[in-house]
């Protein structure tokens, strides 16, 4: 809980791409397959006495089927005790040695994370406890019933947030029948329908060695890292890798959804399914979006919406690639009586950009920003862990970081223009508008 509120000049949204400059060598990624068949990705980082570890399963909400919320609740319950010890006792074992344990899930992935000091006794206790959680989470009925209620309350709370309401409507309209259409935290109906047995079944099926990748970074040598991973995985059944997800179908036509809400601002989301990890157009689209709305205040959308007209505090566009096409999303919020103007400016700016293309000047500026900022992408163990986990899970080449800069430099203006025209459908976007009267 933050006791002090801070205001920032621009809102901080997650950047969705990673880049490299040739002057700095990318981290030396080592890769091997553990005895249990799990892919391991490792970087030795001896600077600080810390080990960071992430085990990622192909067990995101895209695997929920008709029980939306299943993946999320399964992941959530990993914090509710294991091996007969309750949540408090498990947490005491982590916290007693200063370790940080985390677990979460998104549409594609479910993961467990651990950060520990390298001091052997402390590291052992932290990793022994992690092994307990991975092997024998409790999933007791009483824990499940209570957490189910908490999920329902949190769903209720979402209804007071225009941005959350908008996101839900946006995904539904953009993805139709595809599993990505569902929100990871489910609906009132599906959460009520879930049982502890459903979670156990989901866990048994997906939290298996052949469906996992492991990323490990820190002050630990390869031999010790290998030993640690063997300890974690030795009692995890091999199981089967999850099947590939269905492909996303592009939208056939434009659609606008308006939802009233007693807020002073109206939130606008606009876009359509965009690109995927490993997409041959991925880098071109990343660079192509940079000058549109991917680079904070130095972008066309920011210029048109914020700098020229003072309409919105936050305005952006980005691609968020997943295993299948993730969203291309444009967004802003403005006071209720200005929303029509806001929507018009967003649409016009996207259309102009796609029709006439990026300028030579914009390309130069974007390239410089992306390549010049590379060292910032990998300046901490935590960030390196993020790359490893991503490269591992999405089966990207191990040279992903080494090649990135060359790839960005080689992209031409013509290529960007052609690709953006082909991949951004300004005439077939979903627009969701939440706020004010209908």
């Amino acid at each position, binding site marked *: 809980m933050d006791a002090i509120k801070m205001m920032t000049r621009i809102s901080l949204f997650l950047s969705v791409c990673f880049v490299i400059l040739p002057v700095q060598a990318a981290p030396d990624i080592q890769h091997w397959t553990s005895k249990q068949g799990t892919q391991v990705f490792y970087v030795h980082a001896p600077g600080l006495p810390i080990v960071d570890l992430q085990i990622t399963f192909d067990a995101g909400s895209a695997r929920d089927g008709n029980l939306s919320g299943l993946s999320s609740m399964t992941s959530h319950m990993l914090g509710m005790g294991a091996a007969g010890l309750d949540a408090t006792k498990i947490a005491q074992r982590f916290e007693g040695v200063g370790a940080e344990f985390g677990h979460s899930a998104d549409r594609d992935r479910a993961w467990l994370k651990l950060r520990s000091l390298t001091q052997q006794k*402390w590291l052992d206790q932290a990793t022994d406890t992690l092994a307990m959680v991975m092997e024998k989470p409790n999933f007791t009925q009483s824990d499940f019933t209570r957490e189910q209620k908490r999920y329902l309350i949190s769903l209720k709370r979402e209804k007071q947030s225009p941005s959350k309401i908008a996101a839900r409507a946006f995904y539904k309209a953009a993805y139709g029948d595809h599993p990505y259409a569902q929100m990871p935290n489910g609906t009132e109906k599906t959460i009520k329908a879930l049982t502890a047995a459903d979670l156990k079944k989901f866990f048994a099926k997906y939290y298996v060695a052949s469906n996992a990748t492991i990323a490990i970074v820190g002050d630990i040598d390869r031999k010790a890292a290998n030993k640690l991973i063997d300890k974690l995985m030795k009692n995890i059944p091999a199981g089967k890798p999850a099947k590939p997800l269905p492909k996303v179908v592009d939208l056939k036509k434009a659609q606008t959804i308006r939802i009233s809400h007693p807020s002073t601002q109206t939130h606008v989301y606009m876009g359509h399914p965009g690109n995927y990890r490993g997409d041959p157009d991925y880098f071109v689209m990343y660079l192509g979006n940079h000058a549109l709305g991917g680079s904070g205040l130095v972008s066309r959308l920011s210029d048109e919406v914020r700098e020229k007209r003072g309409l919105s505090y936050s305005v952006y566009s980005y691609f968020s690639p997943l295993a299948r096409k993730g969203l291309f999303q444009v967004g802003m919020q403005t006071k209720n009586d200005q929303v029509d103007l806001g929507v018009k400016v967003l649409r016009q700016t996207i259309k102009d950009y796609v029709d006439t293309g990026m300028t030579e000047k914009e390309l130069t500026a974007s390239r410089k920003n992306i390549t*010049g900022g590379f060292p910032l992408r990998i300046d901490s163990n935590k960030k390196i862990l993020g790359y490893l986990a991503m490269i591992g899970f999405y089966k990207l080449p191990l040279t992903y970081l080494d090649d990135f800069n060359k790839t960005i430099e080689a992209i031409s203006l013509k290529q960007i223009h052609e690709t953006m025209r082909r991949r951004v459908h300004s005439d077939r976007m979903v627009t969701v508008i939440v706020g004010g009267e209908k």
Partner: protein
Amino acid sequence: MQRMNVAMLVCAGFLASLVAEAGVSEYQLDNGLKLIVQEDHRAPVVISQVWYKVGSSYETNGITGVSHVLEHMMFKGTKKFAPGEFSRIIAANGGRENAFTGRDYTAYFQRLEKSRLKVSFEMEADRMRGLQLSDKEFQKEVKVVMEERRLRTEDKPEAYTYEQFNGVASITSPYRTPVIGWMNDLKSMKVEDLAVWYKQWYAPNNATVVVAGDVKADEVYQLAKQYFGPLKPSKNLSPPKPQTEPEQKGQRRIKVKMPAQLPYLLMGYAVPSLKVAKDDWEVYALEVLAGVLDGGTSTRLSTRLVREQGILTSTGAGYSLSSRLAGRFLLEGVPAQGHTIKQAEAALLKEIKELQTSMVSKGELDRIKAQVVASNVYERDSIFYQAMQLGTYETVGLGWKRLDDYVAKIQAVTPEQVQQVAKKYLIEDKLTVAELVPMPMDKKAARKPSGGAHGRH
């Protein structure tokens, strides 16, 4: 000019090897500007931050939010650089930049590849004294800030409750007012208000430059002299009036009624900060106390009130020791299904009572201390965080060297001390309670007589 080189201390035996690597250097220029450099050579990057001793707690009624609006306007051009040019140049250098305003500070930062520090210094020095405030730019930007306020506060029932809570928890303390300012003050703000504010506070003798990363301290010092050295200090810099909060003599309570789905309870006790405390052990004991209640999953509030008793669906405790003025020890909670705000309050008060009547266990204390030792190492993985801490401590007037004490002081806290501060500060007469009362979300329903009063302003 002076220079000191003091190692940051990490107080656990096996981490001793770390100590030697982490050097902090401090310099002062002739014009009063302070420079703090933290060398960290793990990655070829640098963080540059300029901290000004000004924020919402320096403001008076009628101009609330002026520090923050000025922060926005700092990107709108100088004689040398056109509006927006600052951001474009940083971007062209591969940099990331932003700025933030708090109660006690306004700060600007860039993250850059290490060889580009001079780009930051040149432009930061330029806008420290050379800002051109245009009314045209201001009229647009203040609208952006109003949108920011709508986004962060007006449409967020819990944030709105927090703002109202602060408004009644203090009578004279400037921590009463929101950092972003009251909407009405934003509406009546003029570019002249900003000009006065800028002239008063933006000067080298009111600024601290913090640099962290793969740099050499002495080279940074030379660079700082080159760019910031020529700036003239302000002659009429005077510290803000103390506006000391009179002692609270009795509980304060409010209700906030607005469209919402869930009720929400926020409680806060008047407590000292490190800056104002007579005995600093009290502050560290309060920090440990916050850790006993809410420092992780195994701590009391989530263990007992959420998981065991099921009275709350979410809860937290918060205390910030690094504020310039006395602040609040906060507790919050959302009742679980079938439970009331009244039960939530009673449950939280019972936990406070227990802290007063019985001692915390050795196990709890040991866990908190282990976490503090570990966090102290983990924080070093982020040079941005390290720079933030140095800048905060320096700007609130503690001096960055006090950071060195932190781990040892926490480790020295005893169960008796935790009990003592609970008895001294967490008492009914120093408590303020705010309750968010949800009103119907549907506007039509809200207009029905049974719907009660409108919360929306």
